[in-house]
């Protein structure tokens, strides 16, 4: 009876030491000639317990973590009849196949990350064994218009941040005159702390390729690009391999599966500018120009890459497509809310007990995510706020923890859905500091083109620094608010337009902290004068 052992080998697993664990496993299995199939997989998202090892014996799965190299031997001993010595129950994450004994996993609804940590990302056969490319084959039997309609009906909205309905975007490209048409996958993932797209690519690359193929079929695009940041070498390697396999399998290239459809994909590596995630800057970057946004219109569907009709979608958006086609738009729409279907992945981080990658249905209350799945704040501290959407997002205070995860509901709080960064802040954190941190990021990453963003964010940052260093005055708050307005309404692209959000939301919910920081200084000053 052969035993299947899976080990997560994504970038975050490797950072936690998975390479050494894998080596220990492999040499032990070889030495002891154990009846074991070792499988290197992507990440299950359990960042707080990596490296993660799953042992499947007689259809019964046990998940362990963190598994350091020293823990490999006792673990194997336990499974291969050499006794229980040394194995602690603390190492066990879950003993149930449905993971209902570990809410971090059990309470998730996985769509885009479903096979991450399950299949070998380097194996096309593994993907094919899990309905791989069945959705594409099904789409080929539908008309392109019907595919577009299915995506519209699914209520899928762009996961790159802005939440524009994907089906409508596809229809615009489909109807736009001109050829060739380009389909671009945005895998720049520039938000600090976000790693949903990386995990998806590293865990299940063919799912992305299949989504792109269906998009190409539906929109009439014949050329594809994946714009992926160069800081993701493993993801790039996985993708290169998957593209090669897809060509050999006949789903990429010319006359795909004998249908006359032509589509191929080129990987373009970014050079580490946050602004290159903005769609017009991204297209300039692919063209070999400096990645700077330009005014819209023209929109990409009218005049995009190389002046041709183009469509840009985020990794997660595209990775959702095959499931929608396979299970039907109603199923997908049913997962979410009235206006927005499906699931969304988040990179849960900060002062949380269980950090990692989490996928939940749109409409899930924040409370469920933070407390039931994430286990609340680490070290028993009080929750103060949740920072959502990275540097373009905002802070939702603890008293709004029942807000549901939905584009419009989140926007009403002043935060945004964003691409999926979620940072939990406990009561030790200074909110002025948080605003300063995120603004210093956007300030550095401004492309320099427009003055509200280039100079305005700098002035805001200086004011925040002044307040933090106890040198603020009350008028600084008015100045900040004025600048938030001019920068937010006056900037050219989304980077500048959203840059004030961390300041605006902290001013809205934690104004007293600003006032306190300023008052402390003034009190100190008066005390000094009186002395």
């Amino acid at each position: 009876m052969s035993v299947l052992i899976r080990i997560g080998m994504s970038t975050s697993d490797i950072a936690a030491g998975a390479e050494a664990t894998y080596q220990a496993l492999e040499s032990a299995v070889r030495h002891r000639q154990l009846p074991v199939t070792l499988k290197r997989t992507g990440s299950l998202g359990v960042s707080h317990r990596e490296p993660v090892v799953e042992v499947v014996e007689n259809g019964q799965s046990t998940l362990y973590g963190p598994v350091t190299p020293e823990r490999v031997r006792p673990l194997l001993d336990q499974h291969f009849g050499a006794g229980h010595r040394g194995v602690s129950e603390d190492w066990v994450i879950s003993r149930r196949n449905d993971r209902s004994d570990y809410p971090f996993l059990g309470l998730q609804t996985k769509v885009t990350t479903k096979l991450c940590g399950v299949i070998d990302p380097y194996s096309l056969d593994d993907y094919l064994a899990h309905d791989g490319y069945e959705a594409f084959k099904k789409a080929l039997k539908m008309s392109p218009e019907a595919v577009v309609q299915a995506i519209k009906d699914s209520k899928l909205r762009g996961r790159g941040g802005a939440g524009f309905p994907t089906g409508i975007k596809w229809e615009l490209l489909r109807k736009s005159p001109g050829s060739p048409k380009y389909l671009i996958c945005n895998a720049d993932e520039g938000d600090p702390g976000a790693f949903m797209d990386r995990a998806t690519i590293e865990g299940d690359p063919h799912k992305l390729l299949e989504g792109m193929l269906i998009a190409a079929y539906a929109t009439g695009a014949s050329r594809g690009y994946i714009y992926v940041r160069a800081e993701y070498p493993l993801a790039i390697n996985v993708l290169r391999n998957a593209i090669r396999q897809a060509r050999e399998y006949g789903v990429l290239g010319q006359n795909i599966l004998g249908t006359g459809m032509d589509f191929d994909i080129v990987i373009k590596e970014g050079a580490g500018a946050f602004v290159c995630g903005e769609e017009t800057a991204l297209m300039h970057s692919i063209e070999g120009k400096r990645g700077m946004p330009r005014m819209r219109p023209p929109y990409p569907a009218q005049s995009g890459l190389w002046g041709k009709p183009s469509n840009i979608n985020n990794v997660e958006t595209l990775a959702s497509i095959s499931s929608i086609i396979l299970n039907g738009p109603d199923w997908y729409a049913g997962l979410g809310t009235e206006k927005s279907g499906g699931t969304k992945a988040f990179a849960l981080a900060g002062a949380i007990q269980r950090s990692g990658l989490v996928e939940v249905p749109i409409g899930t209350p924040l409370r469920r995510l933070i407390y039931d799945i994430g286990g609340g704040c680490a070290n028993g501290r009080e929750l103060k706020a949740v920072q959502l959407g990275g540097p373009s997002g905002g802070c939702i205070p603890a008293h709004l923890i029942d807000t549901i995860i939905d584009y419009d509901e989140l926007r009403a709080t002043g935060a945004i859905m964003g691409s999926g960064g979620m940072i939990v802040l406990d009561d030790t954190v200074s909110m002025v500091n948080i605003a300063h941190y995120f603004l210093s990021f956007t300030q550095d990453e401004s492309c320099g083109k427009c003055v509200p963003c280039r100079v305005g964010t700098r002035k805001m940052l200086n004011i925040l620094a002044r307040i933090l260093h106890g040198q603020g005055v009350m008028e600084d708050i008015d100045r900040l608010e004025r600048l938030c307005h001019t920068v937010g309404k006056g900037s050219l692209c989304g980077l500048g337009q959203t840059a004030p959000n961390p300041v605006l939301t902290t001013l809205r919910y934690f104004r007293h902290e600003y006032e306190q920081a300023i008052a402390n200084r003034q009190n100190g000053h008066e005390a000094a004068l009186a002395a």
Partner: protein
Amino acid sequence: MIKITIDNREIEVKPGTNVLQAALDNGIDIPHLCYHPELVPSGGCRMCLVEVEGRPNPVPSCGLQAAEGMVIHTRTEQVEAMRRDIIDLFVSDHPLNCVVCDKNGACALQKYAYEYNVAETSFDFELSRTLYQDDNPFFIRDHQYCILCGKCVRVCDEVVGAHAIDFSQRGFVTYIATPFDVPLAESSCVFCGSCVQVCPTAALLPRNKIGKGREWELERTRTVCGYCGVGCSLEYALKDGEIIYAQGFADAPVNGEFLCVKGRFGWDFAKQPDRLTQPLVRKDLAYELGLTDEPWELPETSVLKSKPKAENYIPVSWEQAIDITATKLADIIRQHGGNAVAGLASARCTNEENYIFQKFMRVGVGTNSIDHCARL
């Protein structure tokens, strides 16, 4: 034509016109710093923001295509306040050295700071860059004055095609640079000075202009460039009869504002002492023609081979010079036939002049030996 309404005035514009240009064409002034009618609008300065009925947020008018029925307001409280803030931000990163600045009176930022009464920044003053580059004989680059409007980059890409400069770095410290910061001479720059022409501030200045007088002290003379047959119009800025700098002007029929390196920077011959300003006749010929009483002979080494010396010539009028040339030419043709004469035309003449010249040589003189200095 489509009808739009700007500030309650209905105007008709050609389809495809941007609202900023439409306004300017109709005498409605919308402040702007990065727009240039010859360049693709970039939307960087945000000064031209206007409000359009039915749109929630202000829109840059330079990037807004006029559409039938569009109703635009250029001076609402909101956009005027934003403009004032934007100028405030500009001057927080720009030395207000106007009293000693060579752009004083011609600077677009100064103009708007005046109009919006921004004497100094209400934020903290902080210069993002102080780089001063003096790496070529033609113009300097003084980055502290640069407002990053990007016009220089666009003119170099879109009009000149040299692609010598671009934005470099990110964030507050962004600046305009050659690739890898090589000196301009090692870049693909052709020193046409188009970037200097369109720069709204003192960031790019002709080297000769520095310290030579304020804009309003200079006289302007428009003329046609003498360097080649294209016939670009240009304007000399003069002080006390001395040329300070040359520039193009927008309504020049052939070249608009743009010139080449020779027209823009190559005018120092004008005041050279050895510049030829009138016709001269060599003394031996002058004696033979009775123009002088002093006999003179060609020295052993021919004057044709060495540099002509002024004392070997006497000045004559244009009429005399043409007369002498015509008589001599006629003599040669009479004695030796037209084929003894050859004609060499010049690229500095116009097409028409060159056409007449070859006609004259073939029909008048009777020779087909005609050539042109531009044959390389």
